């Protein structure tokens, strides 16, 4: 058994075992984090949904175009807010998200506000214009920080640094399904088919449409951001859980075949030895 083949298999088994331990541990960590992330998603979803619906209902029946937030413009520069992960090893989570972001950014000039370390790395590599590196750690983002980001972006928007804000994130559909998604945050645009339906219908704004939009929009953006963040974090953990689970399974399968190979090699060498002994004694 001192031959090379048995030893080689043994070393491989060792390294696979090590990998399996890591993937198993990561899977366990992810699955314990999922519970909390899922709860957070479920709690933030109504806010996210109602905020979005309300603002769009307002935009649909809007007749007051005084505020720059509702003015349609021929978008030249797009600002992308990309919500990615801090760490890799989460299956296709980051890759799918970046594909989506690239799809959108390919159409026009863009700036980007990356959230998440992987995301920052990706856009740095692409030499994209980055608005801020301050928010590189997605896990640290609180509601307060979302408000901060939102205020900064609103300021830049009003200064005409860009003409459109698109948020790219990952939807947590279920434990097994996460889909990258994008929503246009600003300018607030009516869904054209709904808007045409009822133009006579008007809303009373107190004190004025402009003042209301100016006060609401930063909150709206912060709300969307926070909601998207909750979704993305849960999706990341779910993706990692699935990826690590299948990695552990693969490792186990490999180990099984390697054990078989190892035993065969061992058996082979024993047989050979016996044959040699018998052959020797026969003389």
């Amino acid at each position, binding site marked *: 058994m001192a031959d090379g083949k048995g030893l080689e298999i043994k070393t491989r088994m060792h390294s696979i075992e090590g990998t399996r331990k890591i993937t198993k541990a990561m899977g366990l960590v992810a699955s314990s984090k999922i519970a909390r992330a899922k709860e957070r998603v479920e709690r933030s979803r109504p806010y996210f949904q109602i905020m979005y619906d309300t603002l769009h209902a307002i935009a649909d029946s809007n007749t007051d175009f005084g505020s720059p937030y509702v003015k349609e413009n021929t978008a030249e520069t797009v600002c992308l807010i990309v919500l990615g992960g801090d760490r890799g090893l989460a299956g296709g989570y980051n890759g799918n998200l970046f594909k989506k972001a690239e799809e959108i950014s390919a159409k026009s000039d863009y700036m980007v506000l990356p959230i998440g370390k992987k995301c920052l790395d990706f856009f740095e590599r692409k030499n994209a214009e980055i608005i801020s590196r301050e928010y590189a750690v997605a896990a640290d983002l609180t509601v307060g920080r979302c408000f901060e980001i939102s205020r900064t972006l609103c300021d830049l928007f009003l200064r005409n640094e860009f003409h459109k804000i698109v948020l790219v994130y990952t939807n947590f559909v279920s434990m097994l399904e996460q889909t990258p998604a994008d929503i246009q945050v600003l300018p607030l645009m009516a869904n054209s088919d709904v808007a045409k339906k009822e133009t006579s219908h008007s809303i*009373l704004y107190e004190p004025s449409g402009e003042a209301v939009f100016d006060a609401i929009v930063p*909150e709206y953006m912060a709300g969307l951001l926070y909601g998207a963040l909750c979704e993305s974090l849960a999706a990341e953990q779910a993706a990692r859980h699935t990826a690590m689970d299948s990695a552990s399974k693969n490792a186990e399968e490999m180990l099984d075949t390697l054990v078989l190979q190892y035993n065969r090699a061992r058996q082979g060498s024993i047989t050979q030895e016996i044959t040699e002994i018998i052959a020797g004694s026969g003389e």
Partner: protein
Amino acid sequence: MVTFPLQIVTPDGLIYDGDAAKISVRTIEGDVGILARHIDFVTALGMGVCRLDTEESTRYAACMGGLVAVIDGKVRVVATTFEWSDEIDIERAEKAKILAEEIINSDSDQAEKQISQARYRRAVIRLGVSQRF
């Protein structure tokens, strides 16, 4: 009593979803009371007390930031924070108030003072709501 459907949400979840008879909130323009069959209406919320009357009870809350919208008879209060008077953490609010006061009276920079001013106001409103109701 005529009621209307009301939803109150914050980032921490759906606080209220049901029928209400009357709700009054502090907006950026002052207090506004909303009854059933209100005209379609949108305004931004300020910081202050919210009073909610349902058929069974009257409840008070500290409500800050966000918007209130009446669309097709449905009322939605989308607030940044919304805490019922009996759920306010008095100790935390007291601490926040004292801390904010210290910063305002110290010689820190203007931006920090402004943030503290807002914190101070929020703490005072929370304390006011929890003590009064």
